[in-house]
């Protein structure tokens, strides 16, 4: 009896196998639905990432020249020119911030250039170094003591350099007058801060030349893989937007108490423009600028055109809602809370789509830990 059952089951197993193979011969000329992931990554590297870093390098050089001019002749005209150069530079940074992988991680670009305080912080009291704070105390101490190391990997150091320091030193209250005392040290610190940015960006540009091969040839989706990093990077960008960029200063974590001084680029006053550009760029990454070789197209090849369209539409909606927020954002968050609330809602929807549907559909993992199901 047992044997008969076993035999029939074995036959069933075999026929199932044959059946499956047959149907494959019938319909499958093989890879008609296949997707060229290396092609996608090559497109990202050559059309988006590497050109964006090259442009960032240009903006840094331009900014450095303007900074030197200002530091030599400190007047409002030069300050105004410098502010324009800075805005261009920071906007260009938002076009690379999602590539938080490989050379950028090695260099620590995000924390040294545009530290957001980490997204694991509680944003409930003022005065603390959280979000896009500026640590003027450490900056002033560094200037007066002359004793500082901008390569230190600690929060105080992050908050005393990069865009935070540039905002304070060049565009903060009485920025020009402050250079009149302790001039040599202050000018040196300002130059060191600018030079630090140049060093980081130069290094990333050089490193990408070597890293490119590794990037385009790794088509896995596990943690640390380029595809995994790109998708997780998109989710992270949305997390930053929902948290330190808009939600937290708006008072989401703090019972509605707003912290206007903690918006990004507070003294330059273009935080809304930065948030908008960041999302425009994220959409550009998702659609690969309409080249047919992006995540949106990968989704289509997986029969998930619905999701691709849903995501594109949500990106557009978020961008529209953000464009309704005028700069300076620090004023808007208290003057037009309803509009901020609207944008926030759509940001959360987009974040949800990326974290759940997109991550699921692309098989991207978020942790290294063993996993035997979901």
């Amino acid at each position, binding site marked *: 009896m*047992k044997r008969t059952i*076993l035999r029939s*089951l*074995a036959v*069933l*197993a075999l026929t*199932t*196998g044959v059946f*499956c193979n047959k*149907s*494959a011969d019938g*319909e*499958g000329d*093989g*890879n008609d639905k*296949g*997707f060229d*992931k290396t092609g996608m990554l090559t497109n990202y590297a050559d059309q988006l990432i590497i050109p964006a870093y090259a442009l960032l390098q240009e903006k840094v050089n331009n900014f450095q020249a303007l900074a030197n001019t200002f530091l030599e002749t400190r007047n409002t005209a030069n300050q105004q020119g410098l502010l324009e150069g800075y805005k261009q530079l920071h906007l260009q940074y938002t076009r690379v911030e999602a590539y938080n992988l490989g050379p950028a991680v090695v260099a620590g670009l995000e924390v040294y250039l545009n530290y957001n305080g980490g*997204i*694991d*912080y*509680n*944003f*409930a009291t003022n005065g603390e170094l959280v979000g896009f704070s500026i640590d003027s105390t450490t900056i002033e101490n560094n200037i007066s003591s002359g004793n500082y190391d901008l390569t230190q990997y600690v929060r105080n150091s992050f908050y005393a350099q990069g865009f935070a320091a540039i905002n304070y030193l060049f565009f903060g209250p009485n920025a020009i007058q402050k250079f009149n005392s302790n001039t040599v040290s202050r000018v040196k610190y300002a130059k060191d801060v600018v030079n630090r940015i140049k060093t980081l960006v130069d290094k990333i540009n050089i490193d990408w030349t070597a890293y490119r091969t590794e990037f385009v040839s*790794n*088509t*896995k*989706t*596990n943690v640390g893989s380029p595809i995994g990093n790109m998708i997780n990077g998109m989710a992270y960008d949305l*997390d930053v937007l929902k*948290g330190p960029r808009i*939600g937290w200063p708006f008072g*989401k*974590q*703090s*019972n*509605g108490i707003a912290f206007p001084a903690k918006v990004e680029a507070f003294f330059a006053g273009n935080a809304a423009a930065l948030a908008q550009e960041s999302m425009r760029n994220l959409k550009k990454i998702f659609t690969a600028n309409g080249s047919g070789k992006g995540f949106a197209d990968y989704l289509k*090849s*997986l029969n*998930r055109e*619905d999701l691709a369209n849903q995501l594109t539409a949500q990106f557009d909606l978020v961008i529209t809602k953000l464009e309704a927020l005028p700069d300076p954002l620090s004023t808007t968050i208290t003057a037009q809370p309803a509009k901020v609330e609207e944008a926030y809602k759509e940001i*959360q929807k987009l*974040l*949800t789509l990326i*974290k*759940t*549907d997109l*991550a*699921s*559909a*692309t*098989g991207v993992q*978020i*942790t290294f*830990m*063993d*996993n*035997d*199901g*979901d």
Partner: protein
Amino acid sequence: MMAINRQAWEKPVSIAPLITFRIAFGLLMFVSTLRFWWRGWVDTVYVSPTFHFTYWGFEWVQPLGKPGMYLLFSIIALTALMIAAGFLYRVASVLFFICFTYVELIDVTTYLNHYYFISLVAFIMIWLPANRLYSLDVLIKPGRRRSLVPAWTIGLIRFQLGVVYFFAGLAKLNPDWLIDAQPMKTWLPAKSHLPIVGAFMYNEWVAYLFSWFGALYDLLIVFFLLNKRTRWWGYGFVLIFHLATSIFFPGIGLFPYVMIVSSLVFFSGSFHQRLLFFLTGKKVEAELSTPYAFTYKKALYAIMGGYVILQCFIPCRFLLYPDRLFWNEEGYRFSWRVMLMEKAGAAYFKIKDRAGKQFYEVNNAEFLTPLQEKMMSTQPDLILRYAHFLASTYAKRGVTQPRVYGEIYVTLNGAGSRLFIDSSVNLAAEPFSWKHYHWILPYKAAN
């Protein structure tokens, strides 16, 4: 049917399968512990997190701090080696079981079916005379040597493996798995980087092949292994299936190897005698003909009988809950549901005070690791546990009688993300229960 009569299960059989199993299990556990340690997971999982998802009723199981956790893992590694060597076997197996299970009970989000399997096997091993040959214990006390044991000792391990496979197979008999080939259809295109087979990963028939072969394998493999004539074929399938699993889904960890090694227990006594002879050069002596006899037989039979009944009931308890198991996951754990669905969630919590005047949004990253957040976002009992934690945390921060509301979106097997729980329910006031949680929204097939 297998005739279960007393004579058959007390029949003296060769101890050899038990010996091989003991040595292999001990060594594998040693390697597994080192791997966990070496990857830095002791720190990331049990030392750095500020909050842990304890099991209901086991809230007292807490991490022991950095030195404590490393001590615990040292004990696990050491006792695993002692089990392999058969040195102070009873003490070692009890200690191993307690320490390993303690670690697993610290945080639900680290639950893996194979950790549960290890805990169960470690529990069984405590009662079995697996140290009566090829061990340091009998080298020290040669009088304790036995070459025969009651058949049920080996049968129990085979039963445990059978439970794992058979229920894993039953779990795959659902429309998502068989008719839609989900989640394979979602997972396989992410494996296109594999050499040779990678090119086929976009073809749907491959997903169907994997799904159907997997289901048939899990359902039938035990019968192939039990039957002498099909055993070698069966073991061939064991190798193919588990090696394929570890190549396609490396994230599954050591589970395939645990099963490959454990399945050897289905081979006959004489096979294992030859294997042990081949490995050690020492023969099982025939003159040791007095079979091992248990002292408290009746009590032991009662324990083991209860154990067997529980093992058959636990994977079926999901039948007592309404709605879709994959959605509400009530009765999902401890049921050998391995790699069965693709589920992801995003959870946003809001805190209000009693008057509804104060209003805070929770930043999950402040309290949870990425792994914890991922696991919590899709599992109702973890959501409840976290909500209670949030209530007490925000109470300490000065919110009077905090109310906790969750806006949670979940996607299951490629269906668009949708609301998972009732966002208007104050989770802080909802109790833990064996009953169905009414605040889980019913799964709707259409988007």
